[in-house]
């Protein structure tokens, strides 16, 4: 069969795979943002032991490859009695790793806010909560956006790792189609086009969003 015919035949399956990849990305992103927030709170808080645990967590989980985390979540936890379905093992592994990255991005975002801003807000008589909510966080968010969106496009690509534990994402579909058709290059190229189109689309949208946020603020 010609390449185009094959592509037409397999495209629906690939798009179904893309949906799984996106669900995985969304769930992992939520977990990573929550974990990142906790890590920042722990590291900037007053309780020493929590700060030490959070720092240790970041050091360790940043140094271990995501694939090792994935196999740990899928196989090792099962041996220890916690049997996660492939999808959720993927969410846990990706969330555990990207949480450290998002935590660091949030921390440097907070640090980028000029201390004078906080002092001025306090001098104006704003309460602690209001200083955070109205002065510090909006500025920190602006600094957080560029690295944060960059991390997101890496997260999408890393969801392709779940192929190794049999989750039927886009990469899994491509691999299955490659084996079925004996035309691996055609199938992987189609997968590449789908990933790439999505990557371009997403980076355009995120760039526009960043620009809008910046404009509204200034």
């Amino acid at each position, binding site marked *: 069969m010609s390449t185009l015919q094959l592509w037409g035949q397999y495209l629906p399956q690939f798009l179904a795979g893309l949906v799984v990849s996106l669900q995985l990305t969304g769930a992992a992103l939520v977990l990573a943002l929550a974990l990142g927030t906790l890590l920042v709170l722990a590291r900037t808080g007053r309780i020493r032991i929590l700060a030490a645990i959070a720092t240790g967590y970041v*050091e*360790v989980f940043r*140094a*271990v*490859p*995501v*694939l*090792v*985390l994935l*196999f*740990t979540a899928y*196989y*090792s*936890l*099962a*041996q*220890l009695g916690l049997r996660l379905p492939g999808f959720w093992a993927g969410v846990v592994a990706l969330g555990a790793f990207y949480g450290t990255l998002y935590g660091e991005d949030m921390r440097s975002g907070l640090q980028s806010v000029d201390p004078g801003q906080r002092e001025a807000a306090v001098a104006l008589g704003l309460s602690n909560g209001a200083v955070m909510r109205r002065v510090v966080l909006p500025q920190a968010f602006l600094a957080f956006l560029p690295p944060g969106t960059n991390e997101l496009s890496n997260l999408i*690509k*890393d*969801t*392709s*790792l779940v*192929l*190794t534990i049999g989750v039927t994402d886009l*990469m899994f579909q*491509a*691999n299955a189609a*490659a084996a079925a058709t*004996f*035309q*691996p*290059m*055609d199938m*992987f*190229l189609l*997968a*590449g086009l789908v*990933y*790439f189109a999505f*990557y*371009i689309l997403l980076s355009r949208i995120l760039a526009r969003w960043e620009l809008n946020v910046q404009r509204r603020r200034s």
Partner: protein
Amino acid sequence: MHVVALYWQAIVDGGGVDLELTAIAVAVSVVVGILAAVGRIYGGKLLGGAITVYVEIIRGLPPILQLFIIYFGLSQFQINLSSFSAGLLWLVLYGVGYAVEIFRAGIEAVSVGQREAADALGLTRVQALRRIILPQAWMVMLPSLMTFLVLQVKNTTLLYLVGIADIMYQARLGTSATEQPAIMYGMAAIAYLIINLTLSRIGSTLERRQALYR
């Protein structure tokens, strides 16, 4: 616990394979990366544009997909690479895509005045790059180069998929023999942790020493 004693050597051997591949790939991609960064900055529209597209493709596609295109995809055209050469080729192609951006950022971070001064002194472009710009860019690039090195070590985990006997390969082999994934992947995690923490420690020492020189 005898499982650990039994398989530790295999994991260490796998680590050797990982480090060897990383070292070769990083060395090659640094050299090519410098050339490509210079090409991207000074090479005019055509060459610069081509390099930009290359970088976008490498950054836009998932690593597994790139590796599979090289190893499985090319076999459709009767180009059958061995596991080792396919793995190494991918690490190099991927590494070049990242190194270009690191060097471009580093070179562009050196102030224009430095380049103009070198021009005014009658240095050729190559001389200016080698003696004025790159030494200053080095300092800016050091942190991202260390991140890049760690990234490449992590990327080697994918190579078991094409049958290279790295740490992951050994850990999977051990798992299917012993049915003790917690221990085997725990050992793999520790091995990567040791390698990557050592690399980042070396990186921060280098940075501190470079900072002292200035």
